[in-house]
Structure formats: structure tokens, C-alpha cells
């Protein structure tokens, strides 16, 4: 009934989101969801979105995928880090309808 999968969570600049989702597509991810971010803090200090050019906007990309895809994402480290994500966090989860993921 429940099937073990990986939950990949990436915080990245909005302008780089398409580069990340293109990569996820190429690595065989069955889908992804982009969520808005209001503000954040990291190594570069405070970041608050909403400037006219959208330069300081971040987004959060969520991707539920198989262990194998998660493995490939971790291995595509160099390409992924080219998009300069602030976080790439991977955790375990179970899904209903394993056939889809």
C-alpha cells in the first residue's frame, strides 16, 4: 500500500529554477513542485524577494522520486551545484500509488 521513496528538497534562486527542473527531468524524476519563498538567511546573509527584477527571489523545489533517481541527483552534484542551490536535502518518505513515482 505504501511504497518507500525519496523526498528531495532544493532551495534555489528563482532565476535558476528552470535549470534545476530541467536537470531533474533529465535524471528521470517523475515530477516536481515549485513553491514560493518569502525570505531567508544563509551564508550570503538575509535575502528578501520582491525586487523589481526578481533577482533576490528564491523558490523551493520539491521532488518525490525513487531511490535510484535520488542517487542520480546526488551524483549529478557538479551539474546541480552549477545552479548554486542553497540547500539540497534528501529524506525518506512513503507514497500512496507507487506506480507513479
Amino acid at each position, binding site marked *: 500500500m505504501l511504497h518507500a521513496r525519496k523526498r528531495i528538497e532544493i532551495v534555489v534562486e528563482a532565476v*535558476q529554477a528552470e*535549470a534545476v527542473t530541467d536537470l531533474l527531468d533529465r535524471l528521470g524524476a517523475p515530477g516536481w513542485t515549485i513553491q514560493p519563498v518569502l525570505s531567508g538567511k544563509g551564508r550570503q546573509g538575509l535575502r528578501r524577494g*520582491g*525586487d*523589481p527584477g*526578481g*533577482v533576490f527571489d528564491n523558490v523551493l523545489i520539491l521532488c518525490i522520486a525513487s531511490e535510484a533517481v535520488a542517487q542520480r541527483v546526488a551524483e549529478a552534484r557538479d551539474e546541480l551545484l552549477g545552479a*548554486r542551490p542553497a540547500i539540497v536535502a534528501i529524506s525518506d518518505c512513503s507514497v500512496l500509488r507507487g506506480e507513479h513515482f
Partner: protein
Amino acid sequence: MSSLSLLIPLPVMFFGLGLAAGLARSDLAVPDAVAKALSLYLMLAIGLKGGMALAAPGASEGLFGALALGIALSFLLPLPAYALLRGPVRLDRVTAAAVAGHYGSVSVVTYAAAAGTLTTAGIASEGFMPAVLAAMETPAILTALLLARRGRQGAVRGKRHLAREVLLNGSVVLLLGSFLIGWIGGAGQKAQLAPFVEGLFPGALCLFLLEMGLLAARQLRAAPGRLSARLVVFGLVMPLIGAAAGLGAGLFAGLSLGGVALMMTLAASASYIAVPAAMRLALPEADAGVYVTLSVAITFPFNIVLGIPLYLWVAGLAVG
């Protein structure tokens, strides 16, 4: 009181209000969607108004010369900017190239403030200037990329996006599109659109400058250590270099007093929407804190407070 009001136009006072509120950490805020709506409105109104003016007989004379000179300015102004930034300012190459790109391009709101000043002063200008504004938005992006890549291998990242950003940038499309629509269709419908295009303009400009002041304050507070004294000086000197080049171009193109003042303003202004977004995409190594802050918090206020009256005065000497 009225003497002060003659010195500082009302919209500029709203910039001051926003800046003061932001620096004092007031919770005053303009929602993003509202700022974007105001920005769309200003471009649509500037474009339509210019296009309608151009529909008058003989109004298109000099259009192509002004366009060509504007495009040349946008391509070339990043070069002195880059030289200053690499030389005396000592910025790293990639950030220097990104900053230089901003100064070749233009700021729509600075243009709007200058156009408002002309209207208040009753000085006419060529109807095609909005087309020059649109044409100057993006060529500088290409120069910035060439500067950043000089002597280096490696493809530009996100080329596809970037091409769109340069050729099909939203501001360019809306400005040029509204301009064409105003040109083709405006003559007969001018009166009908006047309350929208002209009636709202000063108020919308006030509200948008309030937001620009808040934004400038946010940038200044977020990046206290980011702007060296040399960078600040660059942000005040570069507009003067741009304005001088704009003066030459305007005179060469045979523009009127108002047209020369607008050309100087365009060349002096620095982009704060199109170029930052393109640079973030193409040159992620460049420090966005530097170019956004410099453009929004140093050059923009300098231009609207001191620059525009100065350019208008100089244009008067040169043309009059």
C-alpha cells in the same frame, strides 16, 4: 514653501518619503504585485503616448537616427564603465562587467520622471523617444557578457533564457508594442484613452517612486559593507559620463531641447529590472548586491534629484 516645491518635483518627494521610511525601518510596504502593476502601467502609458504623438504629420522625422544613436550608446557605454570599474574602483572582472551592463541600459522610471518634469515645465519632446527608450534597454547586456568572457573559454549558461531576456524582454515588448499600437491606432482614440494614459500618470509615478525609495532603503540596509566609497563615487560620476555622451548623441541627431534632455537622461540612467535579471542568469558569479544597490540606491536617486534638472539646464544651453 512653493520655492521648495519648484526645486523638487512632487514624485521625487515620494522617493524621499519611501527612502526615509525604509531607513527608519517603518513597516510601510508596497505589495510586489502593486509595484509590478505600476511598472506595467508606466510602460504602457509611455508607449501609447509616444506612439500617438508620432502619428501626427511629420512627427517621425529623425526617428531612425535617434534610434541608431540610442542603440550605439547602449552598446558602447558599458566600455568606459568597465574601464573605471576595473581600474580605479578595482572590482573583480565579472562583477565589473555586470555593473557596466546596467549603465549602458536605461531606467524606465528615471525616464518617466524626466518626462513628467518636461510636462510640468511645458517643454515638448519628440514623440518617438519611448521607442529610443525601448531600444536602449538590452543591447548593453551583450556588451556586458562579452566583457565578462574576455579571454575566457566556456559557454554562457542558460543561453536560451538569455536570448529571450535580450530580445523579448518584457519591458521592451510592452514599450515597443504599446508604442506601435499608439502609432497605428491611437490618433482616433486619443481622447478616450487620455484619462488613463495622462490623468493617472503623475499619481502612479508618485506611488512607484515611493516603492523605489523603500527598495533603495532595503538595499542600503541589506548591504552596508557592499558598496565601497569608490563604488559610490562611480555611481555618481558614471551618469555624468553617460549624460555627456547622450548630449552629443542628442545634438548629432538634431533633437529638440526636450529630446536632448531625455537622451541625456536615458544615457545617464542605469537599469534596475531587465539587466539585473539577465545578469543573475548569465553571470551568477557576479555580486547582485553590488549592482542592484548601486543602480537603485545611488544612481537612481542622483538622477531624479540632481541629474534631471542638470541635464535639462545643460540641454537648454546647448540647444537654445
